[in-house]
């Protein structure tokens, strides 16, 4: 197995058209709230990756899952994190039909990782 490709933190990447990065687009107070969560990163990752369902639930409703994990989320930030309607369903991978008619269904392992 070869791993020589360099992975870049997608958050720090500028957009495809050269638009500002995510961090640059955040309002300063919310950025500070987000930065404050970094001190709880270990707890966040441990909780969300303990069960594949937790990771998926995090994507669907991050505020609820962070609360369940015992992570203290500043109120302004919590108010900004709205549940994503129907996302949990859309996270299910679709099956793919091959030219010979065979249908394959990818098995997806979702993992929440640390970041900048």
């Amino acid at each position, binding site marked *: *197995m*070869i*791993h*020589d*490709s360099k*992975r870049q*933190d*997608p*958050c720090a*990447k500028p957009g495809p058209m050269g638009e500002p990065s*995510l*961090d640059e*687009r*955040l309002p300063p107070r*919310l950025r500070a709230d*987000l930065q404050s*969560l*970094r001190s709880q*990163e270990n707890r*966040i*990752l441990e909780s*969300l990756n303990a069960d594949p369902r937790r*990771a998926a639930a*995090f*994507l669907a409703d*991050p505020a609820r899952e962070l609360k369940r994990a015992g992570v203290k989320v500043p109120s302004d*930030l919590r108010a*900004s*994190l*709205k549940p*994503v309607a129907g*996302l949990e*369903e*859309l*996270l*299910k*991978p*679709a*099956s*793919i*039909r*091959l*030219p*010979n*008619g*065979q*249908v*394959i*269904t*990818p*098995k*997806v*392992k*979702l*993992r*929440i*990782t*640390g*970041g*900048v």
Partner: protein
Amino acid sequence: MPGTATHGYDMVIEFAEQAIQRVVSGVLDGSSLFSALGSVLDAIPGVNISADGFRSSINFDWPGGISIPTGGKPVDIRLDWLNPSGTVEAQLRIVAGLVVDRTSPDADVLKLDLKDSLFFLGLEIGSGPVANALLAPVRNWLRDHLPLIPLLPVPVDRTTADPKHIRQADAILADASTDARDAIGVALTFGGGVPGDSAAFTSGLVDWGTGEAPGAIAVFMGWILRMLDPALDEAFDQPAGTFRNGQLTRSFGVGDGTTLTAFSISLQNGFLAVSAAVEKSGFCWSARGTVGARMRIRIVEGRLQVNTEVDDPDVELDIPWYCYLAAAVVGALGGLLVGGIIGGTVGAVLVPLLLFALEEGLEGTLDGIADNIRDTLDRLAPSVDIPATGIDIVFQSVEIDDITIRCRTSVPDLAPVRGAGSVVLRTGQVLDLDSGRVGSAQMEGGDLRLDGSGDGRSLATVCAAFLARTGRTDFDTIARWSCYGLPFAQSARVAAGEMWHSIHLPLIADLFVPSGAVFAVRTGQGRRALVQVVDVKEDRLALRWKTWETRAVSTRIDGGFKCTDPLAVSQAAQFLPGRPFEVADPAKILMGAASAIRDFGRVGRWEAPALARRIEGDFVAVSDGFLGARTHRWNVDGRPLEGTGRIAIQGVEFEYVHNGGQLRLSAPFSGKEVPMELSVTVSDDQADRADASRCVRTPTKCPRTLRVLPKWAEYRDIYLERVGVRLVREDLGPVLANLPRWERAL
């Protein structure tokens, strides 16, 4: 165990005893050598042979009680001399070594050596074994007239580094614990390879079962990969060595921001296992997809075809929590939809890449190997003086362990035909098979007479003719030698029920359907003949017949020109669309062209016209009846050819090489038709002589196409255009709306 079938050789071609028995019988019968050898036996005091037929049997079991030198590969041959009724008059046993003759510069010849590797010679007649001391004339005769029985000439290039060309052939003999696994054959080493262990073959590649004259070919996976690796390097526009032994040695981009990080092909029990992994990242996500596939190979219309069964892929999707929360806050989650990521990573890159490597890369390589096998066995070695025996191989089925192909072998019948045709015979008439004449019952020389009427008709032998039932219906493939051992009977009679089936339709008609049964006849003049009823009417029969000649000095020229050393013109490669998502059902197979069968369930394939670089004419003087040592004189347009040299014919310079009965003429392909008259004079030290001449022409076109491996980028574009990513779930409309066109279901 996978990977050990060839014991380190690149390719192994094996034959069962029946196949070799056909070659030996063909050599002995085609040159009337058995009758000459019979005369030698007859001259031994106390031996009296009046037989005019023979039967041979071949055994690969290790002969007990006979001293065999170390490394010797003994083949046990028994020749029975038969009288007209099929009774054995004498049995000659020859134990000779299987060797490879490397004396020719451009051929290794697998042969039975009756001169330098004659391990045992014995003769048994009705009264018991003949004393060894009396067999010296037989030994001398074999040395002078039948020093070798060639089994398979293999063209070689002893210095080649090209994995498509054979460097060396070695003899192998497998004496297994069961006869069904006994085999002999050749183990081949191609350019870039090293010979394996020829002594390690203790069992044949396959269980022969009851197949007729079977053979098998095993192909070493390592050799396939020696050809596949550089092809994949080139197809992906990567430096040499990126793929080595079917493994990826360094990752690289495969387009659309995706990186191929792993690829491997390995041999498992009964299939090839293939796996690949790619990585791709996007906004707030990075994904790694891995997928495995099992590949089986089958024979479709005589060609090798890969069938791929893909496993469910594994996708590891990493999402940084911080990035995700930030994206959620600014409302930028639109691109983070798993269905789209799967479609873009697995459906649009990983799967087509796997299919590209297998169905284009590997199958194309196997196709090339199959063509190579055919070309190799097609070619006669020009500098080896051998009778024009040959073994044609037809692929039947394939097993993976290494890749083993079962095949059927056939040996052409070289016995001279005196006459053949069809005749109409009415009740009371007789047929003379020595002349093909039909006449009244009083006609002299008749062999068969039609008696009776309606379904009471019968075919009876006349005068000195004998008849036997062959038990076969394949008139064209019955060799003369295979008739000798049949139970011939004088005063034989064949009833209507054996020749045709009657269907009586009251008030309408009576139908007579020929059974196809073939009958062998020993004519009044001692020749062997075949007859078969092909049409039946109320008052007459139509008979097909063929009569072989007895010993007569004759020769003829066989062979012709063909294009060789084809090179695909990649620039002119054409994409031939397949029929993705369509399954080949029997009705479609029946209705469609044979080649179309391969296109079902496929994106398509790429083919390019082949540019022939040379034309080669292989010609052989097929002679019969010569008993002494033969010499051959070849001429082209009346000009003699001596040994090796060059000759200009109609402005085209040909190279020629001949050694005895073989002649090869070759020249660069020019597209110009060059007619020429070839002639040969054959003579021997018994003052026998025969001439033959024949007009031949060089080909002006070489209509052949070769499979080519396209560039990956081209394949991917066509795959996405024709197949796309077919997501089976229908509730993904919103997801698909966000994807580029080619990522959507088409």
